[in-house]
């Protein structure tokens, strides 16, 4: 609770968040801005609670937004931008879980559950 209150203070307080970060400037190319926004929505704000950097008012989120925009404007693919952040901050920064061996069960879950269900139902009808 205390940590939460401090985190909130850090997020919201203009006094503590120095120096002021330059404000958001959308990219002039609307297609690129759209792409940048899609990336922002899937990156996690590291100082907030379960909030994407697209939604957050935190200074760090703002800095990350700027980074995303710069990279998209430089012609980087959205996937490469995300990879850059994962490289720098770890898997935790991406709301999209990685597709790896240790997350195989996670990604297989929907088909697994549907499969088990269908098998149970099928067995019932065969009887």
């Amino acid at each position: 609770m205390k940590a939460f209150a401090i985190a909130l203070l850090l997020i919201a307080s203009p006094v503590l968040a120095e120096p002021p970060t330059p404000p958001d400037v959308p990219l002039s190319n609307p297609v690129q801005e759209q792409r940048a926004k899609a990336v922002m929505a899937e990156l996690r704000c590291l100082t907030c609670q379960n909030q994407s950097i697209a939604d957050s008012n935190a200074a760090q989120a703002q800095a990350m937004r700027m980074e995303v925009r710069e990279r998209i404007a430089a012609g980087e693919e959205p996937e490469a931008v995300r990879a850059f952040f994962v490289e720098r901050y770890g898997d935790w920064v991406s709301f999209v879980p990685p597709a790896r061996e240790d997350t195989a069960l996670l990604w297989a879950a929907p088909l697994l559950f549907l499969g088990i269900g269908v098998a149970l139902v099928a067995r019932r009808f065969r009887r």
Partner: protein
Amino acid sequence: MIPELGHLALWLAASFALLQAAAPSIGLWKRDEALAALARPAALAQALLTLGAFAALTWAFWVSDFSVKLVAANSHSQKPDLYRFTGVWANHEGSLLLWVLVMALAGAAVALVPTALGERFRVRVLSVQAFVSLGFFAFLLLASNPFERLVPAPTEGQGLNPLLQDPGLAFHPPLLYAGYVGLSVAFAFAVAGMLENAVGPAWARATRPWVAGAWALLTLGIALGSFWAYYELGWGGWWFWDPVENAALMPWLAATALLHSIAVVMKRDALRAWTLLLAVAAFSLSMMGTFIVRSGLLTSVHAFAVDPTRGLFLMLLMALYIGGALTIYALAAGRVAEGRQFALVSRESALVANNLLMSAMLGVVLVGTLYPMALEAAGGAQISVGPPYFNRTTLPMLFVAAVLMGIAPWLGWRRSGTGHLAARLLPAGVAATGIVILALLLFGIRGIGALLGFAAAAWLGVASLSILLRRGVTLNIAGMAVAHLGVAVSILGATASGALQQEALVAMRVGDAIEMGPWRAELKDVRPVAGPNWTAIEATLDVQRNGRPVATLKPQSRMFVAPPQETTEAGRAGWWGGELYSVLGKPDGSGRWQIHLWVKPLVRLIWWGGLLMAFGGLLALGGKLRLPSRVRTVAQEAVA
């Protein structure tokens, strides 16, 4: 003095719970009817005493008695009256006291409401319910005493988290708890049904109102929580797939499946064992939700107190009940025959499909919520499972469910023909096609997900409406159709507010304006304002559409006095079913303010849909009663 009386009342209530649990168990075993019959007065006494304990705690909060530790830690003398009252359950101990109160009141209701299953079954249910209550009483009295004193008493309290100082707090937790407790009654019916070997249509008829009521309350609680998060957090979203949200969604999904499978037991005496398992699962998930939220496994607004010993206590409690129930299930499942058979194309099959999809969604939400914790605990990587995962996995299933929900009510029980379906579903098909064409041509929407969302909403909405307009509809059927209509309305709101949303995040000086399509928002003013226990900076935004003024938004950045904490208050205004939503951010040091503005078409339909769903659930309690014919004719004329 009054807190001590409350504490005493709580101990006495716990003793009556013990009596209520033990007397029927021994009485039914020894065939001593007089002993078993003690359960009813015990339930009533327990309810009255718990009510007394709750009143005592409320009194302590109301008069700001800071010698009570809980009040000192969570209240403040300057807190507005409403929050002094709702603050009673805005903390760990108080919320548990609310839980046992709702549970005791439900017990009193079981003791008083006439039952078709006989007195023996009633006392059995009361006994099972008291066993569950006992655990919570023990937790409350031994590990979370709300009446603990503080010596010396501080002169001032620490205040309540500002995010919780909102009217939403008055309703959101009590609604959810009432829903959870309703599921505990269904659980007690299931366990009693197994112990008494009474599972069948009559049992289902007696259990169903509790399930429907619990489901409706849970639906309301979740919808309200979503709306609260939407306007209070100031992030612009309405569902974040936060673990705490998921903790409430899981019992809801289980209850939804249960509500549908219990209809099969009631009508056709099939799916008995599966229905019992769902009843056990629904309540277990309610407990798990409380456990996840209260144990401090997650840090969030909901985690009032982080205390590992409490987490352990709750976990043991949960293991005891779930383990016990599953053991009884394993022993009884053999005796509970699966009931009668049905063909592949039938109402039963459609309801089985509902159960399959709801259970799969439940499984996915469960795995997605617990996976990061499990992986980290196992020494693996720290990962985030966020909205992209949940949306990609659950939305396709929701789509299939919506399509089936349009068809299922037209199928007959046991074995259904399909010849009549084309004619019945023609209007829904036309509506779905029409809305997709409209979205493509008029709004230029190209996203396949959004188009499918619109199609599903139109299909299900029109199919449900055409059931409502039929002759001789029972309240049961009408409730089902209204609830399904609610789902369609929510899908429409979610799809439209997502696909048609416009958003701008800009830094502006007073006098600057944002242009966004037909919308124009001008920053008129930024000035300080004061409330009862906060001060704020408030911006004034004049919004025009096509040059005509439509609304003035006043987003605030609030600084609370106790505890000292800042919150953002969104400035909102309604526009048809949609909303204009603005958030005031930070100044940049050179006289500019960060302003976040959204236009969210039809976003309010999301919560209106939730209300409709809950209303449908309550309507279904009316059973075989028919809609008054006059209402029907009026509705038919309105359509014709």
